[in-house]
């Protein structure tokens, strides 16, 4: 924990047109941690997550104030290469969204467009390593040419994780990665998060508080665009400092 924070958000506000969606949020994400963002729908947790790899750029009316540093580097600086940024800060979405291509191509796509693999053998190795890290290799090694969309939902989500880690990112953002999955597939993703922890900084948005409690070391509670409380996960769930956090996690939220 002597490392400087991987991500430092300083006084970040996000606007959609005139509406303020995020209100002066500052937070640090450590390199070896899983951080969970929780909060009611519309609290801004997903919006904030998306500022961390500039996914909000794709929304025309969105505007971001404040500063977000990745390893001390301002990701909103004019000379920042957004494609490169998104390779360093990967993302996994709520609904598994594999490309309508083979399992192999889904994983190989990133390394190929980023020019990470010189030869076919390198690419094969990257695909295998990524699928292994995503805990999917044993299930798909004999059918790498099958379509990614033919896999089960849980397998598709792990394929998307394999695709995200194939380009060797530093941070993985997960936006409710298990909300479309059954409990077994969810448990596999959670186990995977445990295994990936330490290798990547991970930020996960989840509506499932038990999941936040299970996978994260730190939890941030968002409400009405504000960061209400950010603390070690065990503190948030046993002894939150803020009344709004307590009311939310105990099921008293109005």
């Amino acid at each position, binding site marked *: 924990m002597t490392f400087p924070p991987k991500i430092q958000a300083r006084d970040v506000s996000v606007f959609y047109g005139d509406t303020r969606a995020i209100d002066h949020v500052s937070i640090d994400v450590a390199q070896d941690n899983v951080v969970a963002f929780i909060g009611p729908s519309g609290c801004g947790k997903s919006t904030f997550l998306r500022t961390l790899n500039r996914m909000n750029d794709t929304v025309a009316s969105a505007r971001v104030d404040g500063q977000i540093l990745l390893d001390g580097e301002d990701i909103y600086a004019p000379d920042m290469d957004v494609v490169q940024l998104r390779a360093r800060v990967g993302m996994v979405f709520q609904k598994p969204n594999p490309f309508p291509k083979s399992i192999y191509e889904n994983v190989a796509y990133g390394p190929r467009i980023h020019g990470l693999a010189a030869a076919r053998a390198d690419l094969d190795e990257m695909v295998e390593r990524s699928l292994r890290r995503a805990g999917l290799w044993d299930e798909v090694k004999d059918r790498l040419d099958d379509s990614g969309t033919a896999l089960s939902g849980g397998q598709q989500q792990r394929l998307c994780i394999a695709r995200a880690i194939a380009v060797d990112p530093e941070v993985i953002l997960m936006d409710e990665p298990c909300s479309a999955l059954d409990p077994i597939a969810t448990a596999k993703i959670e186990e995977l998060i445990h295994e990936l922890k330490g290798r990547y900084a991970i930020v996960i948005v989840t509506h499932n508080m038990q999941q936040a409690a299970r996978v994260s070391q730190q939890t941030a509670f968002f409400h009405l665009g504000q960061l209400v409380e950010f603390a070690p996960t065990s503190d948030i*769930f046993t002894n939150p400092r803020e009344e709004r956090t307590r009311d939310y*996690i105990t099921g008293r939220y109005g």
Partner: protein
Amino acid sequence: MVDHTVKAFDADIGQLRGLISQMGGLAEDAIAQAILALQRPDPVLARKVDADDKAIDAIEREVERLAVRIIALRAPMAVDLREVVAAMKIASVVERIGDYAKNIARRVPMIEGAEGGGHRIEPISILPSMAAMASGMVRQALDAFAARDPDAAVRVVESDKALDDFYDSIFRTLVTYMVENPRTISQVAHLLFVAKNLERIGDHATNVAEMVYFAASGSQMADHHRGGTLSQSAEEQR
């Protein structure tokens, strides 16, 4: 505190709290009745206290069952989680308090059955005020739980010192009495155990208060409050 969005959760928590206060009431009664049986003396009442302890045990099992159900079905968090865990622990402590009262009741025939009758032993007259002090601590600890009041819990813990002092003084009185009246030694030895049981009841009330403090505040009670509970009884010092 605001109600839960799921109303049945409030009903479960309410039922759990109700069981704890019911149990506490029975334990207080048991202490008072056991001492009354000793003082009168009344062996029939003593047997009743002994038998009634089963009701306390039954509530303890009920608390345990309900607490496990709440944890399984409601996944309580934060203050709710602390309260459910505290309720489970408090129930087992109150059950022990009931056992001490039962133990006092069981000594009544042994004190009374002996030659001369125990009610002629003068120091017996001090025990009711010690019992009132011990059962007062039990009541205040459970009131603190009902009110979710950490300050009231601290006061219970602080009052344990007075009960310990009371015990030390009774101990000396009883030992002196034994020296002066050697024929009563076996009976007075039982009275020593009665006093010791009351002193232990105070310690258990202190434990309850510490749990109440944790459930209500989320942190452990500071050591300077708890220090009083660690005082060695006179018996152990010798």
